[in-house]
């Protein structure tokens, strides 16, 4: 079973709830529990919010969100044709929340959440129909395999 969903939206923050709804519909097809579904929706929302805020430098543009679900993984791709974005060390750097509070910083937490929640987060650039592509992968919970019977003689 492979499930594909594609959403073509504008970079308007009002579309965040629509994409969260689509993510919830895809996740309903998985064995993730409620808590993990909530977290994955947060990761998708954070990724899209970054694109909405930064990709087009204040202008408007198109964003494509693709969900692919198979037996083993959920893959979420978010593609834009905006300003090339390189996360640099930000994908690896831990957030010091105490420092955020000390300095009164409100932002910069989304990428940290994406990385904590998903199993893999990768940025691609300059594809055939995108400038930036964020790929997030979450491995699905696998059913317990039946214990092997070690006694083959019976």
């Amino acid at each position: 079973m492979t499930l594909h969903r594609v959403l073509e939206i504008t970079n308007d923050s009002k579309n965040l709830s629509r994409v969260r709804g689509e993510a919830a519909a895809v996740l309903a097809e998985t064995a993730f529990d409620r808590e993990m579904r909530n977290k994955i929706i947060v990761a998708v929302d954070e990724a899209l919010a970054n694109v909405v805020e930064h990709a087009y430098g204040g202008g408007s543009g198109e964003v494509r969100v693709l969900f692919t679900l198979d037996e083993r993984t959920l893959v979420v791709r978010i593609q834009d044709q905006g300003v090339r974005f390189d996360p640099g060390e930000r994908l690896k750097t831990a957030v010091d929340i105490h420092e955020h509070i000390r300095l009164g910083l409100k932002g910069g937490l989304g990428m940290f959440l994406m990385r904590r929640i998903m199993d893999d987060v990768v940025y691609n650039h300059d594809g055939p129909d995108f400038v930036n592509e964020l790929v997030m992968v979450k491995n699905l919970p696998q059913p317990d395999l039946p214990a092997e019977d070690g006694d083959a003689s019976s």
Partner: protein
Amino acid sequence: MPDLKLAHQMLSNGACYIEAEGFLDAHTFEQMESLVSGVFDKGCFKLIVKLEKLDYISSAGAGVFVGAIGRAKDNGGDIVFLQPSANVKEVFDLLGLSAIFRFASSRPEAEAAF
């Protein structure tokens, strides 16, 4: 139904009680930011924020409180979250905020925090 519904009232103990319902995300966080800023400007730095009916929070929403708690504490106040929903508490946990902010399971407990 709006994406985010906010209500607030001043309490007799000098705290401000805020109730949030719906979705606090990158689309709606400015509503909460404006409310908190307005309450601070009125001199109230003791906030009780009820999150029982808040179905969703993103880092933009949590960031409102991250950005505000320093000013609250600098002015003798604090921010206490009352009955956060499971979805919201999980995000606070991921961000490490559960070890920094105070939480209450009842309104009397929240009011007694000040």
